């Protein structure tokens, strides 16, 4: 073969080998890492042809079903990093393996309307209403951020929240996290959530505000599981980076707590959903992840009823609170469309605690459903 033909031969060989792999790999229907269904070969009907979406749909199909998809994603993520682009899918790779979610796109009017919803609820109902917002990991572990990282303005927002609230009580979670952040890992490094240790610090603050005596650390037995790869990890494509450890803080009686998830018509004993420990993303081990309503019943607890209006930041701490309350209701307003005040009446709760990640509080609109 002629020398000059070589690059062309390699080019064609590359093209054809991928094409052949494409033809002979069976289509995947679901991507665990992306947590979504992958596009299948489009059905070509008159509708598609008219709307000129054909090439778009074909492209989505080809890229979703591309051979070695996750491998190529990783190659690109690390190449970008090498070129100095440290913004893979809005994840900032910090020092010592930290993966921070980029600062939330703060929406001033969204935060204001969310706070207004909480205030209205607090003033129109007789229950005591508290609000607790967990700052982002990039704010607490700012010293581990990469150079030229964008600014985390969480401190500013929290101050604004504290000033705005009057009918509802403001609870501060940021201070204790900031103070203790060097002693132990309070957030997962590959996920945006609080670790058990972080949740415990927040739980102590909650207890103080709610007038409870927190159970000491020595009353828990810690079980440790490795290879927890959180959402920051799976969205970044940094596959070579290590996962986190996830800890279950067990206490006497945690298996006797009855967890009821009405939307799934399921009731089971124990606050830990161990089957999720099999997956890369192990966080749903706490209360099985997001549900419209989750009811925890602990017959041997000393206190009455508490309602948490929450996002997933509350899931781990809820396990600690279940030790105090006979009935703990977790309401997720993204899915729960009934009035929380009705739930208050039905359950006789005396306290409602809005427990959110600050990023959600400044960007998500579902708190408008609080009534």
């Amino acid at each position, binding site marked *: *073969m*002629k*020398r*000059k*033909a*070589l*690059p*062309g*031969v*390699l*080019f*064609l060989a*590359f*093209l*054809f080998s*991928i*094409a052949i792999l*494409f033809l002979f790999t069976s289509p995947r229907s679901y991507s665990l*890492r*992306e947590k*979504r269904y992958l596009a299948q070969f489009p059905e070509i009907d008159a509708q598609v*042809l*008219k709307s*000129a979406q*054909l090439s778009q749909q*074909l*492209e*989505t199909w*080809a*890229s*979703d079903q*591309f051979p070695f*998809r996750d491998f*190529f*994603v990783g*190659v*690109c*993520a690390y*190449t970008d990093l090498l070129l*100095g*682009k*440290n913004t893979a*899918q809005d994840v900032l790779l910090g020092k010592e393996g930290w993966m921070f*979610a980029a600062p*939330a796109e703060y929406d001033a009017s969204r935060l204001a309307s969310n706070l207004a919803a909480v205030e209205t609820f607090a003033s129109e109902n007789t229950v005591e209403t508290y609000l607790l917002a967990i700052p982002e990991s990039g704010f607490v572990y700012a010293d581990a951020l990469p*150079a*030229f990282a*964008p*600014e985390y303005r969480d401190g500013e927002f929290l101050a604004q929240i504290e000033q705005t609230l009057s009918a509802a009580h403001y609870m501060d979670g940021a201070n204790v996290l900031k103070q203790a952040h060097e002693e132990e890992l309070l957030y997962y490094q590959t996920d*945006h959530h609080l670790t058990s240790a972080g949740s415990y610090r927040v739980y102590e603050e909650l207890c103080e505000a709610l007038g409870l005596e927190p159970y000491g650390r020595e009353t828990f037995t810690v079980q440790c599981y490795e290879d927890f790869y959180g*959402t920051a990890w*799976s*969205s970044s494509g940094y596959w070579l980076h290590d996962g986190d450890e996830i800890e279950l803080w067990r206490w006497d009686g945690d298996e006797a707590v009855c967890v009821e998830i009405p939307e799934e018509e399921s009731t089971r004993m124990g606050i830990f959903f161990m089957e999720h420990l099999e997956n890369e993303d192990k966080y749903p081990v706490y209360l099985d992840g*997001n549900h419209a309503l989750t009811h925890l019943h602990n017959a041997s607890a000393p206190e009455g009823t508490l309602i948490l209006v929450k*996002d*997933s930041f509350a899931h781990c701490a809820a396990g600690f609170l279940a030790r105090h309350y006979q009935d703990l209701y977790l309401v997720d307003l993204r899915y729960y469309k009934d009035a929380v005040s009705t739930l208050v009446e039905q359950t006789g709760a005396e306290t409602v605690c809005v427990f959110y*990640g600050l*990023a*959600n509080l400044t960007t*998500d609109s579902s708190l408008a459903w609080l009534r």
Partner: protein
Amino acid sequence: MVFSSLIFLYIYLAGVILLYYLLPRRARNVLLLAANLLFYFCGEPVYIYLMLGSIGINYVFGRLIDRPSALPGQRKTALVCGIIFDLSLLCIFKYTGFFAGILSKIPVFSAIPAISIPLPIGISFYTFQTMSYLIDVYRKDVPGQKNIVAFGNYVSLFPQLIAGPIVRYRDVAEQLTNRKESMEQISSGAQLFACGLAKKVFIANAMGELWSALAALNGFGGVFGALGAAFAFAFQLYFDFSGYSDMARGLGRIFGFEFLENFNYPYLSKSVSEFWRRWHISLGTWFREYVYIPLGGNRCTRARQAFNLAVVWILTGFWHGASWNFVLWGAYYGVLLILEKFWMKKIAAGQRPILGRIYTLTAVLFGWVIFAFDRMSDLGTYLHVFDGSYGLLSADAAAQITAYLPLMILAAFASTPCARVLYGRIQNVWVKTALSCICVVTVLFFATAALVYNSYNPFLYFRF
């Protein structure tokens, strides 16, 4: 389908190359036409009729002009009709909305609704090609094409269908029916294609991200943010367009066609006139050949020359898009070129290389700023940044620019022929070949990774 997509590379292109070379030579044109139409069909199924009509009607007019028995008047009538047909297609599909918008501002016509017709892919390019065909045949520069399959391939050839280059009929007339593909030509085409793919995927896309990131900041993040954005936009346009042209020429070669170069390191130009001889060469050539020279070119009074330049440049601007900023952008170049022609002769002749380069780069950057904003108010907002009211450089803008700095440096380097010169200096042919092989495979591998990554779309309820 764009060339820098997985479906194009690994399904469409792989399939077409395979079939093309499996078939005997005489069947290849038919396959190619089918492949072109499929390519067009995937992008805009409905407009396939437009493409077929365009091929058919221009073919017929070409034959009418070319008839040996045709009288001069008949030939002229056929030419005029053909051009009217092509221009009407362009006007109807590209400019209706624009003109309707202008008319509706006049009280009498205020009832005219806003019209938006989706732009058929490549219409600006293939209508110019068919016009060049009719004119060339009319001028008897080339004989008309009798084979409708070959003519169909000329109009719809997928490598240059979407974004040029605008191939003049006379440059490919011979190749359409009588070309000899060879493995060496495929190989050099593959290298050119890889080069274009790298320009598009690695540089242009990244510069586009930087431009959008800076544009999203309050006041572009200050004076230097706005300046950085202009550079990013200039790099994005150049690498996008010249990358696309390289891919087109490379693909052409893979199927045995040779298209003329469309870009020749324009950012190194020493004058604006030189810039336009190096940027989108096929468009400049088209306007010179079919508008400027027929209007009289330089062989007339100075006033008439200035008028000719103004006409050509306003049309060139308008060709780029149906909105006022493109007209303004064209007029801006018209003014600069008139200035250079009559008053800045030393710069225009390239006798002031350093001053000329600085002036040209500044002028071109400012031109791209006009080009970038299709609303005049956005242009005003952009220029307002330079009075310092948004500061010099915000932290966010600095972070963005730093993140893209290595690629910007690479872009600046790749805007010069340095790499090509260095490669040319290598004496050992085997080292050269090895280097080419490595480049082709590396580009394909990493471009594929980048394309897959673009589609990586985690649905993670990230914050929850």
